């Protein structure tokens, strides 16, 4: 499968973030086209495109939009989730920093389609300082050209977009956590139901969409649903950005149609494994996706195929590990992340993620006990599916798969109080706890 340049068509052009570059490439034509049709037609168009949300869960976008209650007197909100914090994921950043107008155009069309109130928010992670500046500059340009503000292009539709910067919490990328954070509360998810489509931000019906999802909307409007479906497989349609990192020779963001073969992506497009060592493990969908072994990677990268393989497509953040990786150390690193990012409100996540991290750290430091591997595995069953939001499940993904698929290495680690020969850890153990 060959790389494509659809979502990334402007990336790399000089001044790609400016509105003039964007318009000269045919930008904002989709908006003009969309404003001439009705919101219901647009929702149907997105439904027909069979686009699934790019944030990680893969929920069909058109269906999400149609869940908004028809008879609610409250205003509707569209929120853009730009809190891209999943380990190994950096696709939204490319769009935000290099083609912000694609996102803005997508947001205006989507807001029009869901009959949004005249205020919309982009919730961007606090660390994307540059991205927030680029977005604000782009929003100013769009306002000056009349694409935002009152009576956009004479359609009678009003919209303004505010960039809201987060304060550094992974959990604010969870839609309920994001909503609480925008409201000014502590960033922690609310219990569902009610779902955001019914009671979301400020108690109003709310749609939360990922940056890449919203950026696909202008393309669907411009080229039609059939064109969009020509990329990928049935039910897994459209162009997709893949973030490849770790032990590959050419890490980066790649654009392919949905369903590119993982093995082909790693070995052909990314130039293979660093130091030409054998592959050891691949995390295919961001830090929360269960690991795959080299024998399992000959599969198409889409939602359904990865689900069948027992892992998840998630945000398509592919983390490649070669044979020099100590899997206990890598698992610890993931567990550490989730323990650090747990909001602390629900029992299994608050206590469980921290416990997993403690055990993995102990094994890595040579203090493993014979029962630890079983304990870890059983613990993931007590966390997974029991927590209030998906962070608990996310934390279990890497740990459960590592213990299951690399059990021998865990046992070796516990018995020999050290890494498997030929593997190394990527941190110093003499650092004080908490200093990494």
């Amino acid at each position: 499968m060959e790389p494509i340049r659809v979502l990334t068509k402007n990336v790399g052009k000089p001044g790609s973030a400016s509105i003039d570059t964007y318009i000269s490439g045919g930008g904002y034509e989709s908006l003009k086209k969309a404003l001439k049709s009705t919101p219901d037609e647009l929702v149907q168009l997105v439904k027909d495109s069979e686009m699934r949300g790019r944030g990680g869960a893969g929920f069909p976008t058109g269906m999400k939009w149609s869940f908004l209650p028809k008879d609610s007197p409250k205003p509707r909100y569209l929120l853009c989730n730009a809190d891209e914090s999943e380990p190994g994921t950096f696709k939204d950043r490319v769009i935000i920093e290099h083609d912000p107008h694609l996102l803005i155009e997508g947001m205006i069309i989507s807001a029009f389609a869901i009959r949004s109130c005249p205020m919309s928010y982009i919730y961007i992670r606090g660390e994307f300082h540059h991205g927030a500046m680029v977005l604000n500059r782009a929003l100013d340009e769009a306002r000056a050209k009349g694409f935002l503000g009152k009576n956009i292009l004479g359609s009678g539709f009003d919209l303004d977009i505010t960039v809201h910067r987060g304060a550094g919490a992974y959990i604010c990328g969870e839609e309920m956590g994001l909503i609480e954070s925008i409201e000014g509360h502590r960033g922690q998810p609310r219990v569902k139901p009610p779902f955001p489509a019914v009671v979301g931000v400020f108690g109003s019906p709310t749609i939360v969409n990922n940056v890449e999802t919203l950026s696909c909307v202008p393309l669907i409007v411009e080229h039609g649903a059939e064109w969009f479906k020509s990329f990928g497989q049935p039910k897994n349609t459209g162009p997709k950005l893949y973030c490849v990192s770790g032990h590959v020779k050419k890490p980066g963001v790649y654009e392919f149609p949905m369903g590119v073969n993982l093995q082909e992506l790693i070995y052909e497009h990314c130039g293979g494994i660093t130091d030409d060592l054998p592959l050891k493990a691949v995390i295919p969908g961001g830090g929360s996706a269960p690991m795959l072994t080299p024998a399992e990677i000959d599969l198409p990268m889409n939602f359904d195929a990865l689900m069948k393989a027992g892992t998840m497509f998630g945000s398509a953040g592919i983390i490649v590990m070669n044979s020099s990786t100590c899997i206990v150390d890598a698992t610890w690193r993931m567990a550490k992340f989730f323990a650090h990012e747990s909001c602390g409100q629900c029992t299994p996540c608050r206590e469980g993620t921290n416990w997993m991290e403690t055990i993995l750290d102990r094994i890595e430091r040579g203090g493993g006990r014979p029962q630890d591997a079983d304990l870890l595995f059983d613990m993931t069953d007590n966390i997974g599916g029991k927590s209030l939001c998906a962070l608990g499940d996310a934390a279990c993904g890497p740990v459960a798969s590592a213990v299951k698929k690399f059990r021998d290495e865990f046992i070796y680690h516990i018995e020999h109080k050290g890494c498997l020969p030929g593997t190394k850890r990527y941190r110093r153990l003499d650092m004080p706890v908490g200093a990494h």
Partner: protein
Amino acid sequence: MAKVTIDGIDVEVPDGINVVEAAKAADVHVPHFCYHPALSVVGQCRMCLVEIDGMPKLQAGCATSVRDGMKISVHNDKVDKARKGQMEFLLINHPLDCPICDKAGECPLQDYSFNYGAVASRYGDVKRTYPGMDRTPIGPHVMQNMNRCIHCTRCIRFCDEITGTGELAFIKRGASTEVGIFPGRPVDNWMSACVTDVCPTGALTAREFRFESRVWNLESTESVCNGCDVGCNIFVEHRSGKIYRYKPRVNPEVNDYWLCDYGRFSHERYETDRVVVPRMMRDDYQSIAGWSEAIDEIASRLRTTSGDKIAVIASSQLTNEDAWLLRQLFIDRLGSKNADVVVDDIAPIRMKSRNGWLEGKQAGPNFRGVRAAGIKPTGGRSAEELMTKGADGIDVLVVTEAAFSARATSAEVIANLRKARFLVVLAWENHPLADAADVVLPTTIFAEKSGTFTNVQGRLQKIVAGSLPKGEALPEWEILRRVGVALAPDEVSYAFSEVEELFDQMVSKTPALKSLDWSGIEQFGVTGAPQGS
């Protein structure tokens, strides 16, 4: 109504209630920590996970509304394992210091750990502690031990949603999350000690009760708080005649789950020098007397005094039965024109019932009931006149409680009341007014007698004698009955020995209360009792 099946038991429950409440109808207990019926639902503790047919994941019972036809499993292998897992998570960082914890014995965490937890822990690492936060006074009444906290946020929600004061919040995140106050903003609201009731662990305890007693050594008696006229339902918890604490008793119509700090700690007034034997003034000196001696003296004085020279100052602490007998004896029989009841005003205390706020403005629980029983001056002198202008010309003055008002300690008021030729004071504590009396009779406090109070809503509520009377103290109705017997030995209406019989007499002569009997006063009280003002 929705028909649901809970662990194979078919029940019909109202639509829209959650699984925890619905399971109560089937007599199945769904364990929970963070869920509280009066607070918002957050679904955080994950203890109430249940399996619902047709849903792949376990659901939080508190956050799931029942639907018609729902099949719910509270106990099966999958749910039991999940629950055991949550219990393990909650305990890995809990200090398990039950032997020195005040909550032990009434601690949901302890109970659930016995019922749903594992015998041994698989946790082999160092427990998380919060250094320096194991005995933090976070308010005038509340002590916090953060190490014991299980982060259920009930206390935070109580301060946010019930009192609206919002002193408590989550600080930090993940495993370091702590519940805390803002610097310089202690938990100092008028119901602050309620956070110790809602806390399902020993993380928050009442400073006044710390290390006072193990809770299983306390006897608990259903009663009504006598702090103000709201009449919050309480348990009086006592041992060997000493009251250790009040705990709120659920009454959705009055105090729901709550109790104000003023009422909760009002039992401290009883930790004082009690009057335990009758005393009579002889040669300017009060000496110990026998009951019959004292009663005979009072009766002989009353027998020779005309009604317009007999005065009574009743306290708002009298029960309806006391007040009814008082009226029958002094107004109906002896013809006193100077009987009155006194109550102090207090700054309004708000209490949240499930239907809205109530406000207590009187310092006694039963001013309305005593008035309704007919204790009011009929052409004679009011208590206010006696207190401010002097009881000159009164031959017998009976005060039913020395501490009937805060003003009763003032030398001026005492001097004015002392102007009566013969002063009888009923008292439970040694009080300057009692010291000035010709006869002092020891009375029980409200926790030592039975009866009924009428609250601000006109709700008749029962108090039940719990602890034994101190010394020779008698309830007011018994003292009045003995005086009645001494005055009219043949009168049948004085021939009773239990307060229930007196209650029946009162009901039979009070049209508004007819058809009520003692055991028919329901748990939440009976509305529509007559109220005086």
